């Protein structure tokens, strides 16, 4: 414990130090240099050893490696929007870069003031979601790596399709911009339409990078993706029963491995090691059955990525996140022999695609499977697709006796949400749930 604690301090210190340096030298070249140094084997393993758990270590190293590749200039870089099948990007040998996820980092790095200001000066509407605005600002400021390809989908929200296009115009690569059109309903013609698009895009990119489509690589990637899925499902099944998490664990931190790393060895490793760590915790819990007085919340949508007290307040009041919507394994096992069709099915299975019924169905399943006492929908300012359905989700959950708090805030822009108000709402919600249990 003490050693782990000490190491945790060191990694925090390294991170803080880096944060300050990057804040002061906000440009692509500097970040490339930092990543290059950080990405050398001895430093990377030293950095890795500062993490308390194996899974944390693997995740942090994998994230840095992935970033380093995107900045290195050695691979063609593909910007990707959030729910893209990254398997195709890995199979094509491209370095993926997820501007929306990296916008989350701009929140953690404390540079959103700068990125948002830049976006505003370029006439991005201030009413737009901060993830997309901050990403757009970072592209304009040339903090993000230069893209060679831009891939987005109409899955979940409209914004990335537009901001990516503007990025493509900026870098004069309009022909390398691809919009994957995910049909509204998952049916035979829909799957075919999407599979055809994926195949066409893959062929086009392969041609442009001077390669042939390597179908072996595709089936290998798909198989890795299946392994990652396998461990993620096993991990989730443990979480159904678990009341104690490792220190510093927050399920809302796993967007990159869950999407960007899908189809890589790293994702498999992260989820496999997490599974074994959580299994141990469950064994400890089972051996000494403490009172399970903790209440379990389901977290919908994302969280604020700057320092905030939300999760401390939950902990202080004996609440844990029973599960998070974003960790739901929504897709069936993929077929290695039919990669394009499989990936089309994966995209079409996403609960955020199509009508709200899909999302509600998924949420209701999670409520049942994870013994949920209440749910919080973090209503990220400017997110039309999620907030637009909040009323329906609330009514549907209330019907099944699960209270929902719609917590207004901003995931990135601290100045756009008042912590005091947020905590008052949270506490009021807790008081309501607690009083109903009396």
């Amino acid at each position, binding site marked *: 414990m003490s050693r782990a604690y000490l190491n945790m301090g060191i990694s925090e210190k390294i991170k803080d130090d880096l944060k300050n340096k990057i804040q002061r030298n906000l440009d692509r070249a500097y970040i490339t240099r930092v990543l290059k140094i950080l990405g050398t084997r001895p430093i990377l393993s030293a950095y890795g050893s500062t993490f308390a758990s194996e899974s944390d270590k693997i995740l942090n190293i994998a994230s840095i490696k992935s970033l380093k590749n995107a900045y290195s200039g050695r691979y063609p870089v593909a910007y990707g929007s959030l729910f893209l099948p990254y398997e195709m990007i890995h199979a094509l040998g491209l370095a993926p870069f997820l501007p929306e996820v990296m916008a989350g980092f701009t929140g953690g790095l404390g540079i959103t003031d700068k990125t948002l200001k830049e976006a505003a000066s370029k006439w991005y509407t201030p009413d737009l979601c901060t993830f997309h605005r901050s990403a757009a600002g970072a592209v304009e400021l040339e903090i993000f790596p230069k893209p060679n390809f831009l891939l987005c989908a109409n899955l979940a929200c409209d914004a990335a399709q537009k901001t990516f296009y503007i990025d493509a115009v900026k870098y004069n690569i309009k022909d390398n911009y691809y919009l994957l059109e995910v049909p509204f309903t998952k049916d035979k013609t829909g799957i075919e339409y999407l599979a055809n698009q994926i195949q066409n895009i893959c062929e086009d990119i392969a041609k442009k990078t001077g390669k042939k489509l390597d179908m072996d690589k595709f089936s290998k990637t798909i198989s890795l993706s299946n392994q990652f899925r396998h461990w993620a499902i096993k991990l989730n099944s443990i979480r159904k029963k678990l009341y104690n998490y490792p220190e510093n664990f927050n399920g809302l931190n796993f967007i990159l491995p869950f999407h960007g790393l899908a189809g890589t060895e790293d994702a498999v490793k992260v989820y496999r090691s997490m599974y074994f760590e959580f299994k141990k915790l469950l064994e400890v819990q089972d051996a000494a059955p403490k009172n399970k007085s903790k209440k379990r919340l389901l977290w919908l949508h994302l969280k604020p990525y700057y320092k905030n007290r939300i999760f401390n307040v939950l902990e202080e009041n004996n609440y844990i996140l029973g599960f998070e919507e974003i960790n739901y394994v929504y897709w069936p096992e993929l077929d290695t022999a039919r990669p394009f069709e499989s990936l089309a099915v994966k995209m079409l299975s996403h609960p955020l695609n199509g009508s709200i019924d899909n999302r509600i169905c998924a949420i209701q399943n999670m409520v049942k499977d994870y013994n949920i006492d209440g749910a919080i929908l973090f209503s990220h300012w400017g997110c039309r697709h999620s907030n637009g359905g909040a009323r329906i989700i609330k009514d549907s959950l209330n019907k099944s006796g699960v209270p929902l708090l719609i917590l*207004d805030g901003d995931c990135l822009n601290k100045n756009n949400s008042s912590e005091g108000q947020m905590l008052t*709402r949270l506490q009021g919600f807790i*008081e309501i749930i607690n*009083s*109903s249990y009396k």
Partner: protein
Amino acid sequence: MFTCGIDVGSVSAEAVILDKNNDKKKICAYIIAPTGGDSKEAALSVFNSALKKAGLQQQQIESVVATGYGRQNIPFANKNITEITCHARGVVDFFPQTRTVIDIGGQDSKVIKLDAGGNPLDFLMNDKCAAGTGRFLEVMSKALDINLENFSEIFKKTKDKVDISSTCTVFAESEIVSLIGHGADKNKIIKGLVYSITNRIISMVERIGLEEPVCMTGGVAKNMAVVEALSEKLEVKIYVPSEPQITGALGAAILAG
């Protein structure tokens, strides 16, 4: 046994001392004072004034519950409970049947839904902007140079209104300046303004679902123009406690001990 509830809001602070003997509750004293710059100091000051008014010593108070946005910084409080639970509890003391509480304070407004037993079921609070709060009216009264206290009378006697399209305080202010510039009647502007503040509240009520009886609290509940406009738009009778500003503190005092 005596308990005390302290509600520290952004604009005003209230303290209520309650005598809770033999299952009967009696308000011994209450104080309303501006919060000023220091919420801690304001809390202490209303607490002491209330003690003085009730003729009690601090030791005689069994328990103190703090509520309101400043609730976490009050060292002498035994507990802090959000204003949502406290308001609900306080309102029920005035009107036990209440199912919907509309509270409009200086900087925020909320709508609380209660079950038949008076327990809070659900609530909504306005976002961080000042639209639909007391602050909105204050800014507008300054822009128009008409005292807030006259709003009720003007509202009653004026028939027509000028539509105010902006609900945002900042935009509404400039809209009003431009309306005055165009020579619009100030009384009609006031009528329009009162309706425009109710729009924000009505949309919250629509979101949560209206159930009668409806009770309104908070400093703005003293402004009969707003109460009337709301009542007209929602097509319900709105009950207002004799002292709508102290419901939060009262609820806190009841919940203490």
